[in-house]
């Protein structure tokens, strides 16, 4: 048994996601690499005109763990779809409970330039909506293994400066702002939301399928 398991929420509806959410469904284990296992298919109308969808999932500990970090090691492979993460306010929260204009979201980006002397990273887009001063940003190798995490000093548009950087070269790597969780004891669980933004005229990804990669890192207590 893995130290951590991932589950869907009790309410999840492909055709009317407005009431998604609620508590953990311990019969609905999320497995890696299974199509439509957490995010359901984007309907044709949404693919054409765009929209936002929210899906809730849970991380459940099977042993005592500490210092968990959760982030998007690899953002969506669809060029016209973006995903973000945020922490659930409560385990029974529904999408209709969310204050969508004031969500603290976390998300991924690609490093386009690294200026080590100035402790500065430039992202492939404006990241100020999901990377904030004081955040931890985690950089990932091509195989989605964690390379290093640094603390954000300032954010401006696509530029991030860090308080300190290490000797690691983060040029052209994927990175993400990180949600920290202090600890989970065995059998405790915590809810998170995926915010999916579908741009108008989003086209289907076929080979490979539309995908993003969540990564969680932790220590055993």
């Amino acid at each position, binding site marked *: 048994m893995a130290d951590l398991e*991932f589950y869907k929420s009790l309410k999840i509806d492909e055709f009317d996601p407005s009431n998604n959410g609620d508590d953990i469904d311990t019969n609905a284990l999320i497995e890696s690499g299974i199509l439509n296992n957490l995010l359901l298919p984007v309907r044709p*109308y949404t693919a054409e005109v765009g929209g936002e969808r929210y899906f809730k999932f849970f991380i459940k500990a099977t042993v005592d763990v500490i210092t968990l970090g959760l982030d998007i090691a690899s953002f969506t492979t669809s060029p016209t779809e973006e995903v973000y993460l945020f922490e659930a306010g409560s385990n029974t929260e529904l999408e209709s409970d969310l204050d969508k204009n004031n969500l603290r979201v976390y998300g991924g980006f690609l490093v386009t330039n690294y200026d080590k002397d100035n402790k500065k990273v430039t992202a492939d887009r404006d990241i100020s909506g999901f990377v904030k001063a004081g955040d931890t940003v985690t950089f990932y190798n091509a195989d989605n293994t964690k390379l290093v995490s640094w603390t954000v000093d300032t954010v401006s548009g696509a530029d991030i400066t860090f308080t300190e950087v290490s000797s690691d070269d983060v040029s052209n790597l994927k990175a993400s702002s990180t949600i920290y969780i202090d600890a989970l004891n065995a059998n405790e669980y915590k809810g998170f939301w995926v915010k999916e933004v579908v741009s108008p005229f989003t086209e289907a990804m076929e080979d490979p399928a539309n995908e993003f990669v969540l*990564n*969680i890192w932790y220590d055993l207590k």
Partner: protein
Amino acid sequence: MSNNISLSIQNEIKNYDNKPCCVKNKIRKEYNNINSPIEYLNNSDFALNSDINDGFKYTTNEGNGEIVKIIKNNVSFMNEILKYKNMNKNLYEEIKNFTKNINLLSRGIIDVYNNKNTQFDFNINKYKYNNIYYFERIAYDLKTPPIRVIFKNFED
């Protein structure tokens, strides 16, 4: 040393149908957005409507947007945008890139009639440049010159 677990989340995007019969219904749905400029396109007086000019800001279900440029004359699109070459280099480059890779997504005869019983023919094109999505919508009412409108969806 931290432990890692990676989870690959995959989902399908259902293809929307570009057949004229289906495009018609979907565009009709967009017409229902009261604040949509598409609504104005459904009126042959649009070209003369002084309320809708370059820079007109609007809200639809697609988010907030802005009409970047309305081209009202039946002239070559490229000739028209060439005027921007010196005025707004970025916009010119964006449009030029778009026209290189024009992706005609939807074309259909829209049998929606305005009060003059004019039939409209719409083309909808999209392009992406610098992670911003632009939409070009061309309305022909078969009587007046085509109206080309470029929407910049700055929510993206």
